[in-house]
Structure formats: C-alpha cells, structure tokens
C-alpha cells in the first residue's frame, strides 16, 4: 500500500513539475507555443465538434419538432379559420364597396333632383312569360305609389307604374311594346315619341318615332323626356340615338335608341311620386 501511495504522490509531483516547466517555457517564449498547440488541437477537433454539434442540433430539432407537432396542427387550424374569416370579410367588404358606389350614385341623383319626392324600390320579380318587359317592385300604395307614377334609376328613365297593390307595383319598362314616351332631342329640342317594340326590346332598345321632317337628328344625340303627355316629367334621360332608319314604305324615318338604363340588370329603382309631377306641362 505504502508503495502505491508513494507512486501516486510521485506522479502528482512529476506532473506538477511538468506543468510548471510548460508554464515557464510558454511564459518565456510568449503565447505562440500555446496558441499553436491550441490551434493544432482545434484543427483536429473542430470537424468532429461540428459533426457532433450538427447531429445534436438535428436530434434536438427532431425532438422539438415532434413535441411541437401538436402545437403546429392547432396553429394551422387556427390560421386556416383565420384565412376563411378574412376571405369572408374581404368578400363582404367588396360587396359593401359596390353597394357604397351604388348608394353614392343615388345620393348624387337625389342631390341633383332635390324637388322630386321619390320612393326607393327593389325589383323582386319579372314577367313570367317571354313577351313583356314588365317587372314587379317591392313598393306599393303603402309607400304612396300610384298608377302611372314614373320610375327611374340613376342612369335614366325606366318606365311607369302600370299596376299597383299594397306592397308591390308592376312597372312597364320603356322597351315594352305598350310603352310610349313623349321625348325631345336634347341638342335640337325637336320633339318625337319613344316607343317600345317587340323586336328591339329583345336587344334592350327602343324606337324614336314621329320625327318631324325638318328635324336634324344624328347618331349620338341624347334623347330625354319632353314632359308632353302629362305622365313623364321633362328632362329625364332616356338614351342615345344609335341608328337612323327609314320605314319600309319610305315615308318617314325613325331612330333606334339605346336606353341609358341596362334593362337586363335593373336592381334598384326610384318611383317619383305623382304629387311632384302633377305640374307637368300638358295632357296627352
């Protein structure tokens, strides 16, 4: 035992001495020796360290991924729900934007015609057959609407009320065969009549009839209501002339009118209540 104790003590002393020598030598030569030694060791160790570090990172990553899996799933679902929510919100905002634009048009219209007493209505049904351009709106006598009240939208003249109930009214549009509107050329002030016609109504157009012989009419002229006839107040835009034709007999000419209202897509209309149009100029 003593022998072993002595050997141990000897080793400790020897190493201490060795280290003291190394310390002394390195102190004497500056740090280069130690640095180069470290450098040498480092060069060998670094790739191994790197490998171990990488493996360690991968292992850590794998375990943290596995442990995060549940959280990701939950987060993914939350995000998907959020995307749906935002898409929904986006759609409703787009719809609101469109509605806003429409309402702004109506506001402009109301501001431009402050004297008109109007009731806003929405188209709820169209004619069940294929022959008539008639539609039903959701306002009736309850809202002060009467037969022959004039119906417009922001673009121009739509037609007139041909039949009315408590909460509905049937509107005869100006492209219907039965419709006839006193009209005037905005440029030349020549008067004529805008009639609906079966064939032209198909294309959403109507006809300008009874054009006087000396009237100057050119394509592009704007046609508005004349106020003659007592139903329609003057100055409501009807449409523009797109074609001028002679009737088959060649006695008179007529023009095809492209109404400013798109009759395929009429949604909201305003009914001008009769009391504001009572002072229209003359009787039919």
């Amino acid at each position, binding site marked *: 035992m003593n022998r072993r104790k002595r050997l141990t003590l000897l080793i400790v002393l020897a190493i201490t001495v060795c280290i003291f020598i190394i310390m002394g030598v390195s102190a004497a030569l500056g740090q280069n020796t130690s640095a180069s030694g470290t450098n040498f060791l480092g060069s060998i160790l670094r790739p191994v360290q790197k490998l171990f570090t990488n493996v360690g990172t991968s292992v850590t990553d794998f375990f943290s991924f596995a442990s995060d899996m549940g959280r990701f799933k939950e987060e993914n679902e939350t995000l998907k729900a959020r995307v749906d929510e935002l898409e929904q919100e986006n759609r409703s905002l787009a719809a609101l934007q469109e509605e806003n634009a429409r309402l702004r048009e109506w506001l402009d219209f109301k501001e431009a015609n402050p004297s008109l007493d109007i009731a806003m209505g929405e188209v709820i*049904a169209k004619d069940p*057959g294929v022959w008539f351009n008639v539609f039903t709106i959701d306002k009736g006598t309850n809202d002060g609407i009467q037969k022959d009240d004039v119906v417009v939208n922001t673009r121009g003249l739509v037609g007139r009320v041909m039949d009315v109930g408590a909460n509905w009214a049937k509107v005869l549009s100006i492209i219907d065969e039965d419709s006839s509107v006193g009209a005037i050329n905005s440029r030349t002030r020549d008067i004529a009549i805008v009639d609906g016609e079966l064939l032209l109504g198909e294309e959403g157009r109507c006809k300008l009839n009874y054009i006087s012989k000396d009237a100057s009419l050119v394509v592009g002229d704007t046609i508005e209501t004349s106020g003659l006839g007592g139903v329609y107040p003057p100055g409501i835009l009807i449409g523009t002339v797109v074609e001028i034709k002679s009737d088959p007999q060649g006695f008179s000419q007529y023009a095809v009118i492209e109404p400013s209202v798109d009759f395929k897509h009429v949604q909201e209309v305003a009914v001008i209540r009769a009391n504001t149009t009572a002072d229209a100029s003359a009787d039919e």
Partner: protein
Amino acid sequence: MRYLICGITAVFAILLTIIQTTILHGIEIFGVIPNLVLVAVVCYSLLNSTFRSILFGIFCGVLLDCVGGRIVGLNTLLCMYIAYVCGITGEKLFNNNVFVAVLFVVCYSFLFELANYLLHFALWGNTDVLFAVFGRIIPTSVYNGLAALVLYPIVYKLSDPRGNAAI
C-alpha cells in the same frame, strides 16, 4: 290524404310560379325562359282525369295572371283550354312515356305562345311574325320540352293514376 296531395300540388304550382318570375330569368337562353307552370299543366293533364286537369289548369292560370300578363284572365283561359284539350287527347294518345310527354309539352307550348303573340301583338298590328315564331315561340317550346324532362317525374308523383281518381 287526398287533401294533402291537393295541398302539395298547389304549393308545387306556387313554387314554380315564383321560380319562373325570379331565378329563372338568370338562366335565359336566346332571351327566353321556360314556362314551368305551363309544363306542369300539360304534364298534369296527361296523368289525371280531365276534371282534375281543368281545376289544376285554372289554378295555374290564375297564378300566372296574378304575377304577369296584360289581359287579366287570358292566362287562366288558355291554361284551362290546354288542360282540357290535353286531358282529352292524352287519354287517347298518352302511354306514360316521358318522351311522349315532352312531345305534348312542345306542341302545347307552341300553341300557348302562339295564342299569346296573336292576342297581344298581331291583333294590334305587330308584323314581326318571323321574330315572334323563331325568336320566341319555338325557343320557348323547345326549352319547355327540356324542362318537362325534369318536371314530368315530379308531377307523376303528385298525380292520381288515370282511372283510379274519384273525380
């Protein structure tokens, strides 16, 4: 049970009228829409006794008159006549075949729309006969025939087989 079926048939006709005046306008082809109510009248008349057919025809005609039309009562009359004539001819010629029903629908639709054109337009001096026939009457009749393929099975379910009817 009989009253229940009558009620369902009436609701069915009302539903067709509503569809015809609203969403159907969104699927116009060549500017025309099928006349579902008329299709139902023809199909019903082929499958039921003449008396029931006439009642159904009148009911549908009144519905059409309520939602549209120019001369009040004209649709009622036309639907009633069609139900009557169709009931009689159907008794002799109809054999529960859907394609025969389609043929009947096309023929009666042609007559119905022709009557509409004659009474509302031609009588008052309209001369667009070619457009009326090729642009309105024939497309509507064909469209009605297609609609009959869908409506016939439904009307069949609502019908009393011929001969078993109490009235």
